[in-house]
């Protein structure tokens, strides 16, 4: 299926990368210059041409002025992880970063630049192809207004790329008219700008390039969405009514998406009232306090934050764990510690989430890999939190959270009913002789809750972070305290019954008949890179089974998977092998058996990184790390 090949061009020594639907193109822009919507337009046009596409924003912690990039992987084979290892086409619109951008182009690749001024001689390489485009000339000629010049410059290079890569203009025209459906006046000038670029490049260069796009029908009913949007929408579908949050990159758009969808779906125009409340808190501590307060009252409530926010919320998480109040926390991870790299991705909050707060605490964690998961697991999170009466932390990351990801369409079953857990109604209280909030009457370690205001005489109790007995009466008696702690632990061990199972993919046997002795364990956004790496390794004769974790605590199948394989590779995006620590701690397995494959430079994981890291561990130094 792979069509990418590196071949030499006929007469001269200069190589040319030739490929249909299998390449990486990167846009080098200036932050705040309006390039984002044009770049999205480009990525979406590939998607609409029926070809799998994975765009990624690489941006600084800055509002305006610093370099920013948009990297798009086009992959007919359907590989959506970062490819890594240089780009095939660089669209250079930022003189600031040009020197490093030109170095990133693979030999035989293309460098598209604004040739209004001659290129600095230092930017010249013998092994790549230069495509000059008089961007500034065109915008100066066509537009009076400086702002319009800036904005349309972006659309003009998209038009040029359409010619160079053979993307059909009508596909982009349609996207533009959809984008500006509510501002119709903007449709025509955008379509015209598109043609300015299209025509200009056709006059000066032969089109299309050896790298090009050919329409396919490979994306089916898939959607493109950010994980954060999917989480926000999931919370609306889950019936969350109170969202309390504090702005922090990269999670901010979760609360914003919740508000956007709720304002469309849960607003009563007649009375000008909302069936939801979004509270921008004064800090993350307050956000978590609000979530706990609302859930205490039986309103589904959540917050979204990133690592620094989780640190601030830990005291409250301990309270919710100990007092058994449901709470949902979406942690869109970024590179830590401390402020770290706020706009770079990582999976660095595993330990600080699973064991958040002082004393003996353990929290249920979920790990979505794509927007489909983000939506589904957000819905699940509320059921799990209410069923187990405990905080549920969903760990996504910047990579899935803030980038448009191609994903299976979101699913909803209208027959599904929320699991609101064990909450007693006034009628049920009536029938009970003596209510004990922490009395395990069913023997499943989950006592019944009551909500404030339910019954005039029965069910009231004092929720507290201090030790209490089965009837919620304060006590410092060691036995009562210990009984309670043991029950909480037993509840934790039974939690997998309510959690999504890991996804296990068995390779079967290799050609030589060997069963897999290697098992890869991974989670979250590492999924696509690992799948791609395993494809490459299997093509090279390796036999590998995979286990994608979706939740902590672990199902028995995780232990079985580890026992079943001679070598386990735990692949994660942090320095300290945090998930490996959790596996060791929770499953008591042999540390020597769990080998770490780590990547934590802030960039998304790629298949080539996985392969480079596992090669020495698997003793397979001769394998190429890309398809």
């Amino acid at each position, binding site marked *: 299926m792979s069509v990418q090949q590196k071949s030499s061009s006929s007469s001269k020594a200069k190589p040319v990368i030739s490929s249909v639907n299998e390449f990486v193109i990167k846009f080098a822009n200036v932050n705040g210059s309006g390039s984002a919507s044009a770049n999205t337009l480009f990525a979406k046009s590939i*998607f609409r041409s029926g070809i799998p596409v994975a765009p990624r924003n690489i941006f600084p912690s800055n509002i305006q002025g610093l370099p920013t990039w948009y990297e798009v992987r086009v992959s007919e084979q359907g590989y959506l992880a970062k490819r890594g290892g240089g780009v095939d086409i660089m669209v250079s619109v930022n003189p600031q970063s040009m020197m490093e951008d030109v170095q990133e182009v693979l030999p035989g690749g293309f460098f598209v630049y604004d040739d209004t001024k001659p290129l600095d001689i230092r930017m010249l390489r013998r092994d790549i192809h230069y495509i000059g485009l008089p961007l500034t000339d065109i915008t100066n000629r066509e537009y009076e207004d400086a702002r319009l010049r800036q904005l349309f410059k972006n659309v003009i290079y998209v038009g040029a790329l359409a010619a160079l890569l053979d993307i059909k203009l009508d596909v982009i025209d349609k996207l533009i008219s959809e984008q500006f459906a509510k501002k119709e006046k903007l449709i025509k000038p955008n379509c015209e700008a598109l043609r300015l670029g299209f025509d200009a490049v056709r006059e000066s260069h032969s089109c299309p390039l050896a790298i090009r796009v050919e329409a396919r029908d490979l994306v089916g*009913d*898939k*959607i493109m969405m950010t994980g954060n949007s999917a989480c926000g*929408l999931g919370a*609306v*579908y*889950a*019936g969350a*009514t*109170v969202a*309390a949050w504090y702005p922090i990159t990269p999670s901010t758009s979760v609360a914003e998406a919740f508000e956007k969808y709720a304002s469309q779906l849960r607003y*009563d125009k007649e*009375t*000008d*009232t*909302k*069936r939801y*409340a979004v*509270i921008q*808190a*004064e800090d993350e*501590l*307050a*956000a*978590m*306090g*609000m979530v*706990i*307060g*609302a*859930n*205490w*009252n*039986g*309103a589904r*409530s959540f917050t979204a934050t990133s690592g620094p926010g989780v640190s601030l919320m830990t*005291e*409250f998480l301990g*309270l919710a764990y100990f007092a058994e109040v449901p709470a949902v926390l979406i942690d869109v991870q970024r590179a830590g510690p401390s402020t770290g790299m706020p706009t770079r991705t990582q999976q660095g909050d595993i330990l600080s989430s699973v064991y958040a707060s002082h004393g003996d605490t353990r929290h249920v964690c979920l790990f979505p890999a794509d927007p489909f998961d983000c939506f589904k697991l957000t819905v699940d999170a509320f059921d799990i939190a209410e069923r187990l009466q405990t905080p549920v932390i969903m760990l996504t990351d910047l990579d899935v959270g803030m980038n448009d990801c191609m994903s299976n*369409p*979101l*699913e*909803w079953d*209208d027959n599904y*009913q*929320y699991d609101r857990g064990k909450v007693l109604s006034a009628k049920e209280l009536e029938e009970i002789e003596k209510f004990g909030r922490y009395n395990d009457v069913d023997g499943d370690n989950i006592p019944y809750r*009551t*909500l*404030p*205001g339910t019954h*005039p*005489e029965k069910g*009231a*109790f*004092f*929720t*507290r*972070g201090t030790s209490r007995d089965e009837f919620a009466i*304060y006590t410092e008696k060691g036995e009562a305290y210990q009984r309670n702690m043991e029950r909480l632990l037993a509840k934790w061990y039974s939690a997998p019954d309510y959690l999504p199972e890991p996804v296990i993919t068995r390779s079967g046997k290799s050609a030589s008949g060997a069963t897999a002795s290697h098992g890869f364990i991974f989670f979250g956004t590492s999924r696509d890179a690992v799948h791609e790496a395993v494809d490459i390794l299997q093509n090279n004769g390796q036999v590998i089974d995979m286990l994608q974790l979706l939740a902590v605590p672990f199902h028995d199948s995780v232990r079985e998977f580890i026992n079943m394989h001679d070598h386990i590779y735990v692949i994660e995006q942090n320095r300290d092998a945090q998930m490996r620590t959790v596996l060791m701690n929770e499953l008591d397995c042999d540390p020597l058996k769990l080998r770490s494959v780590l990547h934590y430079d802030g960039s998304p994981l790629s298949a080539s990184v996985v392969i480079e890291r596992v090669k020495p561990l698997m003793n397979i130094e001769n394998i190429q790390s890309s398809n």
Partner: protein
Amino acid sequence: MSYFKPQFRHPQLPTNERGFTRTAYEGLISTLCAGCGHDSISAAIIQACWELSLEPHRIAKVSGIGCSSKSPTYFLNKSHGFNSVHGRMPSVATGAFAGNHDLNYIGVSGDGDSASIGMGQFAHVVRRNLNMLYMVENNGCYGLTKGQDSATADEGSKSRTGQVNPFENIDLVGVALEIGATFVARSFSGDKQQLVPLIKAAIAHKGFALIDVISPCVTFNNHHGSTKSYDYTREHVQSGNIVDFVPSRTEITANYEEGQTHSVQLHDGSMLNLAKTKPEHDPGNLRAAVNALQASREEGEILTGLIYIDTEEPDFKTMMKIGEKPLNSLSQDELCPGGERLEKINASLR
């Protein structure tokens, strides 16, 4: 402290409009020190709720951490309570209110809980004009950790060990006025006559209602030189039984005409200067309220009573546009947009 609470009640205790006797509003026995101002406040809350004929189970009690925050156990036993984390009661109350605006929220906090660790949350709950009674049981010290100064201890006030507090104090009443509180009052735990009507008014107020109650700590801040003390022990200790001896005391009361400054004689003969809201002070006028507060401070007096009230400002529920039906009682049908709508959303993402 007492360790026994008599169960006997007079058979003909008076009932309120809902037919409840006062006992329906009581709580567990207090574990605070005998004579603690906080217990008088609990009694005032019980009295006020009884007089208001509130349904006990439709009240929610919220608190932070500290002596004050323990006290919700000692009143309204038929109400749910939430003893949360130190200084963070306002956020819990905010979330609880957003989830169900149909309950009466009584928040109990202390000077450490509100003016130190919880200063940020205090300020923000004021801004949000959350519909609740926010009671600060203010004794100027940390009781449970044995009497350290709190941020409301006055400059120049002496600690139990004789150290003079060099720092400016935080007056929560002044702060609340500055950041837009709509009901601001100060009272004294021994002045039930003033406190009960204030509590009733605060509960009835639509919006955030602060009552800063000077509530002397009989154990750690009750010595000569403390500005939040009953100032009597020193007069009495000739027998030597001063420290750590907390005798059973009768309730401290004060009776006076409205609009007058009074030196209140405490049960042991010590004095506390109190000034009632002055007749010329109009609690409906913010500038007058700020002036009155400042004037009383300059005179070395403690201004009590209703200091400021604004009934016009929209409350939290109004600002948030939350509908009449509490959010926690909305059904899945009212909350979930359903599969057909999701298909449309999917289509818009292609």
